[in-house]
């Protein structure tokens, strides 16, 4: 019987231009056998959500270092709901203060990875928590 291949969108919402982390994580997913749709820098939430729907991904991993996470990440979750696509999970990584994490999770983020997390941990989390 045919098997589902896990597909994931990796992108950077908003205005910060530091994509090294997103690329390292994208590469780790590739090496774990996932198909990674990499959409690059400066993505408005609307484009991220449209791309996720067109690509039929299982989850969206967002990297954000600008400090705008409390605005942009809940917006992605809300747009997914608006398009009846909340089955697509969203997680994020970046410079995110501990105090902001409960609010982000309440807004729909499945997980928040902070600096120092190993790529192995992120890949393991995706494999354990994202069903395709």
């Amino acid at each position, binding site marked *: 019987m045919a098997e589902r*291949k896990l597909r994931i969108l990796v992108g950077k919402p908003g205005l910060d231009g530091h994509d090294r982390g997103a690329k390292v994580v994208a590469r780790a997913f590739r090496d774990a056998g996932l198909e990674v749709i990499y959409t690059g820098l400066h993505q408005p939430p609307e484009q991220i959500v449209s791309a996720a729907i067109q*690509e039929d991904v299982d989850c969206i991993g967002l990297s954000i270092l600008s400090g705008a996470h409390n605005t942009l990440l809940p917006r992605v979750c809300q747009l997914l709901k608006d398009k009846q696509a909340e089955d697509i999970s969203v997680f994020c990584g970046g410079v995110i203060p501990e105090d902001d994490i409960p609010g982000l999770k309440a807004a729909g983020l499945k997980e928040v990875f902070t600096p120092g997390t190993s790529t192995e941990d992120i890949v393991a989390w995706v494999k354990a928590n994202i069903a395709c």
Partner: protein
Amino acid sequence: MGLAERILAGDLRAAARLMRDVDDGFASALEELKVLYPHTGRAYIIGITGPPGAGKSTLTDQITAAFRLQGKRVGIVAIDPTSPFTGGAILGDRIRMNRHADDPGVFIRSLATRGALGGISRSTGEVVNIMDAMGMDVVIIETVGVGQDEIDIVRMAHTTAVVMVPGLGDDIQAIKAGILEIADVFVVNKADRDGADRTARDLAVMLEMGKRQEGDWLPKVLKTEASRNKGIDELVAEFENHRQHLFSSGRIDHFLREKCAVVFSEMLKDRLFSAVLDRITADGRFNSTVESICQRDHNPYSAVETMLAEFLNRPATSL
């Protein structure tokens, strides 16, 4: 309602899901494709191929913008390579096309090659058909970055553009067989770089050497700078010229018959092969036959003839 009906009613998620079912080889996808098939055959299909880094994605982005100005709906199938070691892939073509992501008149799908070697994935034809059934006027297939011999695109697309860049080789490269023979349009992209005129001239000389009959299409060599949107209108006009040539010369009939013959024979080959393989794997004969060939107890030629005789219900001597 099945996926096919939902797609015909304009449901994007259903379209995206069926593309995935096809890509993942789900048997259920065949039933949906059967329903969609009568709704296909309307879209104009353009292939963009060429070496890695030639600017295929950026050109695709600009061509899409030009078709959107004409009011046409555009589907894009963008193919990137699968890792031969892990089966994973990084599909990065969308980076150049993000501005179209939330345009309802554009649908972009990234595909990984998943081991196919001809420049496109095995699922490409079906994904194009789904976009066709979605009502896309134009479908652009951007192949994986190719070298000299990955030419599957030519049977898939009405018009194939081969994108070259300056500095990849001399005029001997230009007369070698392979992808240079399949172009309906040549694009020398990054035409602001040194050597662009030389590359265009080498291609033009190569074309002049070819034998052509009266009424044959003569590919043009066009120079573009995709990142500055230069030469794109001329390229889109040339696509239209080629499309008109296909129809006015009647070659469209030949193209479609060839395409259908390839689709049918490839599908027959795949299904026959997997039907046989599944059965002999299940009953253990695959492994035992391989072992006996390794031990030189049997030869592979007779082993295949024995299998064929059994499956076709005919004596081995008649094969």
